């Protein structure tokens, strides 16, 4: 579909397994996908679907102990799996950076925010103290913090949640990364602030020519901002495709369940949202079959005993993993 140099990220058969007291815990398994430059991809799934672990593994930011990563992650030509911490450190910040989930815990509470931005500039880019400060104030302005020179010396505790998340974004942008991993960047924020932050990310992506991986549980968030969507369940990709296809021509019952449980503006008020029955599976006790089978109304014996692999759908670059896919809705309106 495009030549190799346009591919920023190639993930191949990636698996992340934690060793726990209860045995090996496969948080991510068999994940493969590719990503182009300047693309925005959405990774969607419930709690415990492995999306946070996946985003950290792609970056090589998994914990240093009690974890085994196999497969391959080629980030701008650099293999991240099995790379030394020193090697990865050279890529973090400049090639790939992360916007963390919860701005309440991801900023150092006893360090002035300006210093937290400065640090990357001085250590990674070798800027002088004065230059770094000037640039940090520019970054604060860029992410929309009012009176940035004044806020430079504030502690995180003196800022609101939305402001803190802007600071987190400023830190991630400090060294102009080519790829930005945004892990639930708005989950900890008020609804009104969520849109502001997402719009800010969109705008910055265009201005700074970045690629963005947007990890979220909220399909509403990815609907208009991504070109492609990956749906995850129990550590595996269960459906992947262009955003339009996933929204309108999804084949995996789980994707539909996710969509039906999200509120839509088009719904009449007081419309009841559908909930997905049951709970996400215990990753320590996965069956041989489809992990969604216990919660799926279409499940057959085969679903319980044999795991479906990803298979192509009608549309290009659209695949799903299901033995009893939903009928294709091609041609009909969704």
């Amino acid at each position: 579909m495009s030549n190799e140099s346009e591919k920023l990220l190639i993930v191949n058969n990636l698996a992340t397994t934690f060793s726990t007291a209860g045995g090996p815990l496969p948080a991510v398994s068999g994940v493969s996908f590719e990503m182009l430059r300047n693309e925005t991809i959405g990774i969607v799934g419930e709690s415990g679907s492995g999306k946070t672990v996946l985003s950290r593994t792609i970056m090589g930011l998994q914990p240093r102990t009690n974890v085994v990563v196999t497969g391959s992650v080629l980030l701008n030509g650099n293999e991240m799996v099995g790379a030394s911490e020193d090697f990865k450190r050279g890529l973090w910040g400049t090639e790939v950076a992360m916007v963390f989930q919860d701005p309440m815990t991801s900023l150092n509470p006893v360090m002035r925010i300006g210093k937290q931005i400065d640090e990357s500039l001085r250590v990674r880019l070798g800027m002088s103290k004065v230059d770094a400060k000037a640039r940090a104030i520019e970054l604060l302005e860029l992410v929309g913090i009012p009176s940035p020179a004044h806020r430079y010396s504030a502690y995180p505790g003196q800022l609101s949640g939305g402001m803190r998340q802007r600071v987190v974004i400023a830190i991630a942008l400090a060294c102009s990364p080519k790829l930005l991993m945004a892990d639930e960047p708005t989950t900890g924020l008020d609804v009104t602030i969520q849109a502001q932050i997402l719009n800010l990310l969109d705008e910055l992506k265009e201005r700074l020519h970045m690629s963005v991986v947007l990890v979220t549980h909220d399909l509403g968030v990815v609907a208009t901002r991504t070109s492609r969507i990956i749906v995850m369940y129990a550590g595996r990709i269960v459906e992947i495709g262009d955003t339009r296809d996933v929204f309108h021509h999804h084949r995996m019952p789980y994707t539909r369940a996710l969509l039906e449980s999200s509120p839509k503006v088009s719904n009449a008020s007081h419309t009841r949202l559908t909930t997905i029955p049951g709970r996400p599976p215990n990753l320590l006790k996965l069956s041989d079959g489809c992990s969604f089978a216990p919660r799926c109304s279409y499940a057959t014996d085969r679903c319980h005993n044999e795991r479906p692999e990803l298979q192509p759908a009608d549309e290009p670059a659209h695949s799903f993993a299901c033995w009893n896919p939903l009928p294709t809705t091609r041609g009909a309106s969704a």
Partner: protein
Amino acid sequence: MLRYVTRRILMLIGIIFIISIGSFYLIHLLPGNITVVIEGPGASPANQAKLFKLLGLNKPIYVQYFVWIKNVLSGNLGTSFISQTSVVSTIRAAFPIDLEIMVLSQVLAFAAAIPLAMRSARKPDGPLDRVLSAGSFTLLSVPPFVIIVLMVLYFAIKLAIPNIGPSSYVSFSQDWITNLESLSLPAITLAIGSFVLYFRVLRSDLIATLQEEFITMARSKGISQRRIMWRHAFRPSSVALLGAAGINIGGLLAGGFVVQYLLSIPGLGYTLISAINQSDYLLVQGIVLVVAVGVVLINFTFDFIINLVDPRISRE
């Protein structure tokens, strides 16, 4: 912050007030005729009358307290009837020695505890951590007076290293090298106790801090492990360390008694024990007052430093 400081200062005044009452009342624990007990049976009636007047013993006890506290505040803690020198000047001569031992021991303790705790916390339950944790736990059960006796036994007697054993103290101004040598065993003894405490407190807090999200965040910036440890993990983890240090340094003034006593180093501790053995009660009272107030002031100072280190505390 201001409210917090005001509250703490009020508390401090209350504590010092209670210490002063306690120190004042000590004299009244003495059995029998106070002036005779203090000055000894051979005291002249004139001296007895002088002390009687100084203590205001014919007046009600609360008046006696005011007489006493007025004297204390004007810098008069009485005169030792044994050495005939003023209690204040004796304390002034002895105190710098305690200070020197304390500073030496704390420099040693922190210099060992901080880097070792960082190494331990980097790999909890790793080989180094296991050795250090078990070792520090064992040392926790060795009292300072045992450490100092065993060190004297080994270094001063068995190895016969000069200038470190009992009665080898010389003042800093006289010969600073010999002075440092003579204070080395006391400083190391107190450093061992402090090290154990600091290491354990800092290690467990560092382990907790290193699991925080902001550490992963710092890691994702691509800065070195060393920098993450010192710039990001150390400061938020040092609150409990400072708290422990504040209490410990206060206690060290007292722990110094034991080492000074064994080595005949004329600091406050040795002076106090000698005064007790010679029944020099006014000197004992003076030292107790000064040490207790000193300890409280040290604790207060550390509370204040903790606030500067972690701005979250006074805000809560």
